[in-house]
């Protein structure tokens, strides 16, 4: 489904292209390297097919990477979990490992589009399509995920904070493939949440996405991460908001200050879904709700 450009598909036909199904990563990279920006990677197709119909992307070569082995597994690694880039969103939502360790990611996955779309859409595709409203980005930002990207000369690991360059732009240039996402295990005492706000309860591009985590030691916030989606050219961390909370006792006043700071951290535009002012207001509302929720959860657990 197509997000922030809000174009309606006119049911135009798909342009002609040459289609490949490389069975190995090596061959896939060879093709992408050879055809450069005339080629597009096909993962779930839930963004690419729509964009091709709308004439936004016009690849002469389409490289379906779903036949490459082992890119859709979720596995435990040293102190964290590795999620293959081709893992479909439903698999992420239904994973009990992810639900337990990364609740914000579980929640965000469950709110993406529809059940049918989630059976095809992949985490890699959601990140590489790089809509500012990408649902899976804010949780990965608060968990400080590292993205492993392959090209013909090898592999590199990029912290998610440096992954997004602008609307629709990431460090995954032509010739590269996002292979997998490493998500380090949150520290003991960390609570996290993802909230999505849209005009509808489902099947919607977010007006505001908020992911937040707090690591509590007694009542003091030892660590806090707040990430915002849909309110800047890329998904972002709200660092001044984080500074308002970190090291302090989490109470009403601190939460209020943090929520206001988060609104200042955001740089939204006005578009068909909402005005910039409204988005800024909603950042404050939803950051407040998120932090309240984390505080409540932490108090409940302490009994």
């Amino acid at each position, binding site marked *: *489904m*197509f997000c922030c450009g809000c174009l*309606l*598909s006119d*049911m135009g*036909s*798909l*342009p*002609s*292209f*040459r*289609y490949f*199904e490389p069975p190995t990563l090596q061959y896939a990279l060879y093709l992408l390297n050879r055809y450069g920006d005339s080629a597009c990677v*096909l993962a*779930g*197709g*839930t963004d690419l*097919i*729509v964009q091709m*119909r709308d004439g936004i992307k016009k690849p002469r070569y*389409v490289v*379906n990477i*779903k036949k490459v082995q082992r890119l859709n597994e979720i596995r435990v690694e040293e102190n964290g979990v590795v999620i293959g880039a081709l893992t479909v969103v*439903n698999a992420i939502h239904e994973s009990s490992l992810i639900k337990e360790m990364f609740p914000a990611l579980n929640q965000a996955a469950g709110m993406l*589009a*529809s*059940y*049918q*779309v989630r*059976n*095809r859409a992949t985490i890699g595709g959601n990140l590489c399509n790089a809509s500012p409203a990408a649902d899976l980005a804010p949780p990965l930002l608060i968990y400080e995920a590292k993205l492993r990207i392959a090209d013909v000369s090898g592999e590199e690991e990029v912290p998610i904070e440096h992954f997004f360059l602008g609307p629709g732009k990431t460090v995954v240039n032509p010739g590269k493939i996002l292979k997998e996402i490493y998500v380090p295990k949150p520290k003991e005492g960390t609570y996290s949440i993802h909230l999505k706000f849209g005009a509808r*309860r*489902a*099947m919607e591009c977010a007006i505001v996405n908020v992911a937040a985590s707090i690591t509590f030691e007694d009542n003091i916030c030892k660590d806090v991460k707040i990430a915002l989606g849909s309110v800047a050219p890329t998904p972002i961390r709200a660092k001044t908001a984080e500074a308002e909370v970190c090291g302090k006792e989490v109470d009403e006043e601190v939460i209020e200050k943090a929520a206001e700071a988060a609104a200042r951290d955001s740089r939204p535009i006005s578009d068909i879904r909402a005005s910039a002012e409204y988005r800024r207001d909603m950042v404050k509302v939803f950051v407040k709700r998120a932090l309240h929720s984390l505080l409540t959860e932490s108090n409940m657990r302490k009994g």
Partner: protein
Amino acid sequence: MKQRIKLFVNGEAYEVYTEPNRTLLDVLREDLELTGTKRGCDSGECGACTVLLNGEPVNSCLILAPEADGQDVVTIEGISRPTLPLHPVQEAFIEKWAIQCGFCTPGIIVSAKALLDRNPNPSEEEIKMTLVGNLCRCTGYVKIVEAVKAAAEKMRRKIS
């Protein structure tokens, strides 16, 4: 350049020659003449094109024809097997008057059948959230949700 794809639809094997720039929806409707699956938006938003791919509901308008090679597809035409003449979900939709123009109905029935296969006792909320990807312009969804609940009960009774 046309390529050959082999796919299994409703239990039967088919061979189709097609350019890659067509979708599974195109193949089902135009090549196999299984017109029960509908074209609503061609962009994965309305769900009128919903089919089961290897058991999972998907928007067939977002799947390129060559991606379906070797795969197992069930369309609305295949839903009533093996419980001929009608699947309990289809029966319930008729009994509850959950159909007006009928355009969304094939997609909704496929989605609902898949839901009940994985969750035999869904709550009303679960039914609604499962069907967010199937738009109905006519009914307002009330009867549809009732029909899914009734179908769930039928299916539970059949098993017990």
